[in-house]
């Protein structure tokens, strides 16, 4: 269980995360939605111990992220951020090998190699494993990073806007993949999404944030209502049911 208790973060007097108490980890996929600046990435930063909270506590499976060993946490939770630029030229294989670092500490054994091969196969990257990351398309590179996360073999996976810069087909493939990770690999995925229709189609639970607070937290059907979405995004959103699924229309 990832548990935030009264987590607060301020930057120069501006509160970006305001006394947030929430738990993740019961559902396979939890989507985190909300407008820009709602505090979603800050929340990920706190859980991923990149940012220290001004007050409140964050625990992952009972381990306090402020005091627990970084190694133990890295074997329990993986966080993938939005923009992953790497200064060196790495191949896909190199990147996925890094996923084993929390387990192997740089010395890969047979079990590590099996996990690496499995992760590469799972993401269908076999033919690209020798390619350099800067030679890949956006969708392929995103898959390579996900493969690293799969190789890291953690119970919890946090993905910050994994659909960023992907086209229609790759967005759908990515969401199906995340669904499979939750169903087959039994991972507990928390994912930041901007497209609420993707969130509604693929997730088990949606948490909506606004101005540093959690304003709604429920199953998809209860979030996909015009008055809820209007409050979250401060804009008119129409919701229609198409083939039994609620679809939000916010294009006009």
């Amino acid at each position, binding site marked *: 269980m990832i548990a935030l208790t009264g987590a607060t973060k301020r930057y120069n007097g501006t509160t970006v995360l305001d006394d947030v108490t929430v738990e993740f980890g019961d559902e396979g996929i939890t989507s985190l939605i909300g407008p820009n600046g709602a505090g979603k990435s800050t929340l990920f930063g706190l859980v*991923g*111990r*990149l940012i220290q909270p001004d007050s409140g506590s964050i625990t992952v499976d009972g381990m306090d992220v402020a005091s627990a*060993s*970084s*190694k*133990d*946490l*890295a*074997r329990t939770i*993986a*966080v*993938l*951020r939005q923009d*992953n*630029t*790497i*200064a*060196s*030229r*790495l*191949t896909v*294989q*190199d990147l996925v090998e*890094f*996923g084993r*670092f*929390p387990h192997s*500490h*740089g*010395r890969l054994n047979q079990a590590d190699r099996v996990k690496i091969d499995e992760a590469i196969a799972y993401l269908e990257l076999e033919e690209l*494993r*020798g*390619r350099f990351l800067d030679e890949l398309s956006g969708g392929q590179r995103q898959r390579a990073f996900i493969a690293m996360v799969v190789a*890291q073999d953690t119970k919890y996976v946090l993905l910050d806007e994994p659909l960023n810069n992907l086209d229609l087909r790759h967005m759908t493939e990515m969401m199906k993949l995340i669904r499979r990770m939750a169903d087959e690999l039994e991972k507990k995925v928390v994912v930041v999404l901007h497209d609420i229709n993707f969130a509604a189609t693929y997730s088990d639970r949606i948490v909506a944030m606004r101005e540093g607070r959690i304003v709604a937290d429920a199953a998809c059907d209860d979030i996909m209502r015009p008055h809820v979405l209007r409050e979250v995004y401060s804009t008119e959103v129409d919701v229609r049911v198409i083939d039994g699924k609620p679809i939000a229309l916010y294009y006009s």
Partner: protein
Amino acid sequence: MSTDTAAVTSAPAEQKRPGAIRRLWARPGARIALLGIVVVALAAFYLFYDVPGSLLFAAKIRGLTVLAMLVVATAVGASTVVFHTITQNRILTPSIMGFDAFYGLITTVMVFLFGASGFLSADSMTLWILQVAVMVAFSGLLFTWLFAGKRRSIHLMLLVGIVLGTFFRSFTEWMQRMLDPLDFQVVTDAMFASLTRPDPTLLAFTAVLVVAGCLVLVPLLAKLDVLTLGEPMAVGLGIDHRRLVMLLFLVVSVMVAASTALVGPILFFGLIVANLAYSYAGSFRHRWTLPSAVLLGMVCLLGGQIIIEQLLGWNGTLSTVIEFAGGLFFLYLVLRKGAR
């Protein structure tokens, strides 16, 4: 650092051209071995070629120079590669933290206060300890203030380093203007790195610090690789980023301070060897790039010294040649980056 710490691991994955030699060449270990052979050959040539008198005497004197080169190449090569990894920037050198500026300031202040005769007759051991202590203390202060604190930003630290470095340089220049010509000449002389005929005791002290630095670095090689992914991913993979970077900064400052105090400012040359090492090693892994940088440093220093002494018949001034070549190489790096 020796090359035998580098265990044989996976060769680079891409291999378009077949053939035994090509396959061998694709292995970073083979490349480093070749570089090692070149270094040994150059060292042997430098030690035993064109000896006017007693071979033993010449080898002894020249051997000290070769050892000084080895120590300097290790300190500068290793610290520059580590510095690049920490800062995620490959066109910096640790001199941005103001090491060279501080060295100049201390030397000038000494001459300013005690005169050329006082400076030249001062105990070189005391001078070396003073310089190392002041340089390490300065960089230590800089990074505990700006990195260990709440703000902790590498870029802010570098920026403050640049500003302070410029301030020290201006202050040094101002003092140099007030020196009499003889004293000024002594200062100018000390500002050029000189590798020939080092003081054996100082060389031993420097070597101890540099070897200690390497011993700290060897177990951290895998962690250094993870650092190339950047802070967010390194933290996600279980690296205690702040502690690791502080430790690495400490190692870099000690090695750089020790070698600068021994031979003078020579950091610019680290930029050349580090960048050559990245392309030569054919792998991003530090277990290959670090020894490559050190060995390439040896090739540059030995080769440069041989060319100057045997081909051009000059005396000393290796650092002038290195600065000149380094400047051209730096321009090439910047322009190539811009073109991409």
